[in-house]
């Protein structure tokens, strides 16, 4: 009975958006992520594709959709870099899946939870990236956790601004 109740609550809280938002927001995030470091230099401490992945995964509450979206964003980022294609893809696939899985169980409208989730998932994404690069591929890579910490904080701040903005595009029934 409680399971049915949870499913019912989940169905009621699924966020829906116009198709254009699904297409344009991820693309804008990718373009800005590629362009803003030219303006901000080494201080571009954020990962917009990750924030967008987390947002849609939390809002849609579908692990499959979160997984696919994370994979697509990660692969896209890999394609723009000179790394092997799939390193970011794996990291963001896991992040998308976890965000959607968590979104089923908790109230994602709470700003503190959003902040915390973004912070933790950003660090998790960095850890998976490092694991895949060093362990799975056996490649050398210098790593600076302090930069990753700044990026996680930056993602939380961006999420704080971006999530309410994107909530405005929801389809209200």
């Amino acid at each position, binding site marked *: 009975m409680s399971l049915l109740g949870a499913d019912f609550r989940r169905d009621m809280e699924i966020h829906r958006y116009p198709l254009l938002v699904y297409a344009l927001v991820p693309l804008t995030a990718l373009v800005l992520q590629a362009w803003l470091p*030219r303006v901000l230099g080494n201080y571009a401490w954020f990962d917009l594709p990750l924030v967008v992945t987390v947002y849609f995964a939390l809002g849609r509450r579908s692990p499959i959709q979160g997984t696919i979206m994370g994979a697509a964003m990660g692969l896209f980022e890999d394609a723009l870099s*000179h790394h092997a294609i799939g390193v970011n893809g794996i990291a963001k696939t896991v992040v998308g899946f976890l965000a959607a899985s968590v979104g089923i169980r908790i109230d994602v409208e709470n700003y503190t939870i959003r902040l915390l989730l973004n912070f933790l998932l950003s660090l998790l994404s960095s850890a998976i990236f490092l694991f895949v690069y060093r362990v799975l591929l056996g490649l050398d890579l210098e790593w600076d956790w302090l930069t990753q910490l700044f990026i996680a904080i930056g993602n939380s701040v961006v999420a704080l601004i971006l999530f309410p903005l994107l909530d405005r595009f929801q389809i209200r029934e």
Partner: protein
Amino acid sequence: MESFFVRYRNVLVLLAILLAQIVGLAMQVRRGSAGHSSLDSRDGSSVRLIRLWADELVTPPERLIHNSKLGVLWVWNNYFYLRDVRQQNRDLQNTIDRLRLEQAALLEDARQGQRLQALLGFQEKYIYSTIAAQAIGTSGSSQSRVFYIDKGEDAHLKPDMAVITGDGIVGKVRDVFPHTAQVLAINDQTSGAGVILQTTRLRGILRGNADGQLMIVGILADERIQPGEVVLTAGGDLVFPRGLPVGTVEKVRRDPDRDAFIQVMVKPAAHLDRLDEVLVITSTQPRFSDQQQKDIATSQAMKGAEAEAIKEQAIQEQLKASQINAERLPGLTDPNAPAASQAGAAQPAKPGQPGSETSAPAAGPPAPKLLPTIHPDRFSPGAAPAPDTGADSNSAPKTGTSPTPQPPPERNP
């Protein structure tokens, strides 16, 4: 069975997608004989296709943003901010005229220098052709310090071409797409460039670290390296021509992995994090533009006429000096001697050869004027045995003042 797939469909989809990506990664990584893994420097066709799609999707908006920014700046600079432009224009025109002549002279020197180095067997490279390009985007990742420029195959760019700015080197072209190219910055961890320290002449390999800082590795601990020393390209990596500025030494620290080695941290000469316009070196072979060829021809003509005038003047001065010397030196010929005897001394007559005496050249070398002997002996000129004196062609001509020959004294053993 159906309930299993339905129940675990989320996890199954996750695993399937992860597995597909892992397989894709495995196809891109190559394991060497020593057990070290490495990525192929050249992407496979399928990987390149994915990169091309991503590039084609992201580049147009980036180009739009970049061009909008340039457009706003252009309107501002060309229609609003025009103070003192006329005076600046005149000054710049004067500077251009002066620099063109200076450049022509330098190009000539460069060409001559290259010829000389070719003679010496050197393989020195000069930058002769570059293409200006705008940096329009980056990878967006701090682990991948690459950026994109707005020139590609349409501008005949090729992988491994050096990318520089007026301040120093920036990176090298990694991948070329139809209208864009991906440039690997020198501060990326996977990049590498041969460099040399200007003063100490120590050589090392330049690469980036996790923070995007430049460092030279592979240098043995050396106390001579001081902060502020200039770092230049060494030219041995077949990408960057020799002698381009790289940066200055910021500090020296011990290599954490190798005790005997140090890491030299370098402050880049180019602003690697704020790149707008860059130059791609497309050729290191001499190829001058039409205007440069004209300037060189003008310079050579001017120099040629000047050289001819100097040469003519030098010849005249040399002739004049030799005439003065000839007048001042004591004469080697007796001006009072008969012409025939002088001629005969100069060109000995060959017996039995008709006209041999008269055929002596008038412009032959002057005959030495012999002074009278004070104490003659048998070795004195003119003291030779009498019978064939007149026929001996090697004998010196007789003079009116020659004393009578005396027989040599007998020597008893």
